[in-house]
């Protein structure tokens, strides 16, 4: 069954994604993102939700309940304001959780 892809972020960062066929949800205030995420995930319509890093951080609590589920996959992407390294930190936290110490990025 086909599901859609959503993008949440500030209008500057995500405006291009609409052109390639993803559903855009503009959220210029990170504070309101948990509410938005809740609405989006309500009917299980989206398989992948991309977020800008600010939104990703702001909605940490709301994201928790999807950690154990296969869908939706919630993925942080850098916005126009640059890369804060959340993606890499998230990856190294997985490695740390699984292996016990970060063997991938520690050098």
């Amino acid at each position, binding site marked *: 069954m086909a599901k859609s892809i959503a993008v949440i972020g500030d209008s500057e960062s995500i405006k*291009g994604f609409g052109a*390639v066929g993803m559903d855009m949800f503009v959220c210029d205030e990170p504070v309101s993102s948990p509410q938005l995420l809740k609405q989006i995930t309500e009917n299980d319509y989206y398989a992948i939700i991309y977020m800008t890093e600010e939104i990703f951080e702001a909605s940490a609590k709301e994201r928790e309940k999807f950690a154990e589920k296969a869908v939706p*996959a919630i993925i942080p992407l850098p916005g126009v304001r640059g890369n804060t390294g959340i993606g890499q930190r998230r*990856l190294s936290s997985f490695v740390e959780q699984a292996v016990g110490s970060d063997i991938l990025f520690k050098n």
Partner: protein
Amino acid sequence: MDIMNVNPTRMQMTKLKKQLVTAKRGHKMLKDKRDELMRQFIELVQENKRLREKVEAELAECSAHFVNASAVMSKKALDSSLMSSKQQTGVNVGSKNIMSVDVPVFTSVSQSPEKNDIYPYGFAFTSFELDDAVTALNDIMPDLIRLAETEKSCELMAAEIERTRRRVNSLEHVMIPRYEATIKYIAMKLEENDRSSRTRLMKVKDMLLEKAHHYSQRNE
């Protein structure tokens, strides 16, 4: 090591021995599962790392294109050009079982009229920078979807590995030593009972013989 609160009987010992065998077998199997999960996880994580670096670099490039486009076009024109999209991108969600972890498999289904016709606007009033931006974004779509897939898989597998590791450790360092200690305790208790009943029997035998033959009187 603390022992379980059980009656020191032979039946209980047989039961515990059976449980110990099961625990050892379970421990071995879980250990194998953990090792295999770990192997696959490391592979996946390395791919994920590579993809993320690539996607992040390309997205930065994309943003630069958009910034350039917005420099030569008015914000209004730019926004209205991107407002409607010609293609609808979605994903088919399948699932794959990696060592009892169900991970999602995303296959992209995009409905676009033609491969070269991805631009949702006419070329007359837009800058070529915008074309570059949209093309670049369109090109990284497969990587973006693959990134989502591997990152979600890593997340699910990391949780499963942690759980399995805890189970292995609890079996190895708590359950199995406790079984062994309890079995040893029961075995010793049984031996002790055995010895005490044997001495009691010897004593009784002595007393009975004494009663029948009166040895002590005869020696005098």
